[in-house]
């Protein structure tokens, strides 16, 4: 009976535009925004149009520079070599290229820059960057200098080879040491928590699941019976053999259905756009992660029930539940950022909120594939805090006796 009733209520809720937008559409929109705005495919970076102006005798130099820019990994650069017979540094031409042709960077080479390739002269290169804002100018400047730096590196490499040839190894090393006494050596180690695009998307997807579970459950709990006041459905239900505790279970079952559907759609969309969500049906820890999310959904519902008991006006209770749930979602690491990045009281709250703990555990297992033994302290803390909240609700409702109080308050 309860399942059938919950299915009808679930169907009714799915026809409600508010539910469809906030529980289904909004998390998907957010995952898509993250995927295509904050961590776009292709490893991130940005694109820009760059012009290299050859004022004569600099063809090789310009071609070499163009190749370097085209191969930069952190930016997608469209390079165009322009032959011009202007007077170096050709400021008028550079201005026209930026203002009229929409180039972000213009590099002007002086006449006969190719001579620098054989080490005969120092080349004076002029770089113009588009500067709609200081941050934009800084970004283009950095990219332009990165290419120039790589070109210089190539020259240095070639000239050092001829230096070793001419001076011999010992003398050449001494000369090099007097110029650059430090030789850093860098090696990349991949952390266990990856920050690649797939992981970031995975975290966002799990954050969205957290948003769906917490917001919907808390609002449903706080508005217990209240949404059935539309058309006086609650009065009809109370006139049937149905008891209040049945209504509570129907409410909870409907909530689980909504959360499951919203989460499934969000996860499917996330995986579709490249999020890393690991789920192996034979891996017990993956099932544990799902169980943790289910318990967190129940805990959020319980917090909603506490709000319903404490706030007399059902509409105010609903408003407060939205506020509390959003605070918990956005400032304690459920959605973003991960709790390691939080500071001060927010970090403390995240360390002790069962909701934050739940979605942190779920992220660690389902995105970073961490083992249960590493997560045991967090799991223990989650179990204890969840039990405390459920126990408080059971006590506050006097084992169900105060449900009547809340129902009559809604009716009146």
């Amino acid at each position, binding site marked *: 009976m309860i399942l059938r009733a919950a299915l009808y209520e679930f169907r009714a809720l799915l026809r409600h535009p508010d539910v469809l937008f906030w529980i289904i559409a909004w998390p998907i929109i957010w995952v898509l925004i993250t995927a295509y705005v904050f961590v776009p495919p292709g490893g991130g970076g940005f694109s820009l149009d760059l012009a290299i102006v050859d004022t004569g005798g600099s063809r090789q130099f310009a071609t070499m520079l163009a190749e370097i820019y085209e191969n930069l990994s952190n930016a997608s650069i469209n390079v165009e070599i322009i032959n011009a017979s202007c007077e170096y540094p050709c400021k008028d031409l550079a201005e026209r290229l930026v203002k009229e042709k929409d180039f972000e960077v213009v590099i002007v080479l002086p006449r006969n820059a190719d001579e620098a390739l054989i080490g005969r002269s120092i080349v004076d290169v002029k770089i113009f960057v588009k500067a709609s804002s200081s941050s934009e100018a800084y970004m283009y400047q950095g990219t332009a200098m990165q290419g120039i730096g790589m070109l210089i590196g190539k020259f240095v490499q070639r000239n050092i080879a001829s230096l070793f040839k001419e001076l011999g190894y010992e003398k050449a090393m001494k000369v090099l040491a007097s110029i650059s006494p430090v030789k850093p050596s860098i090696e990349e180690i991949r952390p266990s928590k990856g920050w690649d695009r797939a992981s970031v998307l995975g975290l966002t997807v799990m954050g969205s699941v957290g948003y769906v579970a917490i917001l919907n459950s808390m609002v449903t709990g706080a508005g217990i019976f209240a949404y059935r006041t539309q*058309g006086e459905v609650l009065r009809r239900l109370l006139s049937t053999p*149905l008891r209040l505790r049945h209504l509570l279970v129907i409410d909870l079952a409907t909530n689980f259905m909504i959360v499951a559907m919203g989460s499934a759609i969000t996860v499917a969309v996330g995986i579709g756009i490249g999020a890393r969500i690991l789920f192996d049906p034979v891996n017990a820890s993956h099932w544990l992660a799902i169980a943790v999310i289910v318990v967190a959904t129940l805990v959020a519902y319980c917090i909603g029930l506490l709000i319903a008991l404490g706030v007399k006006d059902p509409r105010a209770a609903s408003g407060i539940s939205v506020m509390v749930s959003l605070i918990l979602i956005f400032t304690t690491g459920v959605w973003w950022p991960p709790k390691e990045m939080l500071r001060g009281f927010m970090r403390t709250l995240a360390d002790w909120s069962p909701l934050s703990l739940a979605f942190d555990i779920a992220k660690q297992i389902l995105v970073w594939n961490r083992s249960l033994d590493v997560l045991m302290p967090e799991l223990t803390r989650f179990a204890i805090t969840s039990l405390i909240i459920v126990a408080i609700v059971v006590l506050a409702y006097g084992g169900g006796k105060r449900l009547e109080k809340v129902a009559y308050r809604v009716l009146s």
Partner: protein
Amino acid sequence: MLRILDVVKTWRTRSASIRAVDHVTLELEKPSLFALLGPNGAGKTTLLNIVAGIVPPDQGRVEIMGIDMWREPEKAKRLIGFSPQEGGVFMDLTVWENLMYAATMHRIPSSDARKRAKELIEFLGLEEHVKKLAKKLSGGLRKRLSVAMSLMHDPPILILDEPTTGLDPRARIELVDLLRKLVSRGKLVVMSTHITEDAERSDVVGFMFRGRIVEMGSPDQVKERTFGKVRVIEIEVLEDNAREKLAKVLRDQGRDARIGGTTIELVSSNVREDLDRVLELAERMGVRILETRIREPRLSDVFLKLTGVKLGEEQ
């Protein structure tokens, strides 16, 4: 079938307490249409909510077919169908889904529920609207759906809170016709209303005022008990001052004369004599009478006579 015994209910707020139902006792033994007539705030909804097992009384008992509603609520609630004032339908479910939902609440097996729903859809003329969402239905159709939901488990007693409120006259007549059909099928139908025309069509009417049942009986009985064998003379006077003056003189003469709109309503046991007197008096006073009409007393006249308050006025 339905016994309400000395029921009392007081609503308490921080600043005040309101006795909504004040020692109400009534008994309805056979299938009939019972109208609980009273103005807004008289306590009708509270009384029906107590009868339907939604709100507990502070004192007193409600028995449904001999079963105490507040001692054995699950048993008693199987014997009633309740329709709240706003219908109690899920706006985002279709007509069919609402009926199936109602069946679920009463644990009716699916196959029986489908059969029953088809019967009720036909009986209530909802065939063309089965797939429509409740929120897309007109007020009249929604009330019919509400009645259908209350009848899904085939209860012997149907309790309807203001079923005709908000409906146009035609829809109201059709709905009361439908309720009368249910009575002919052996149901006891209890409805609250503040519309006297609907109460006129009931078998028994109970006048509720300030939480009490002040009069009860068939419409004809209560009229006769209140007024005897009398008629009401309606004297239409367009000019406000003249109307007021004439009514005052009649009242000063000890007559039951009240103003309703542009009309003075005079209760009379001797129509011919009273009409002559009124016309003579009006001529002497220089009051121009536009028209006179003679009619039977209405339930609204009874209510006015009993309470001094006109139906439709908020309490």
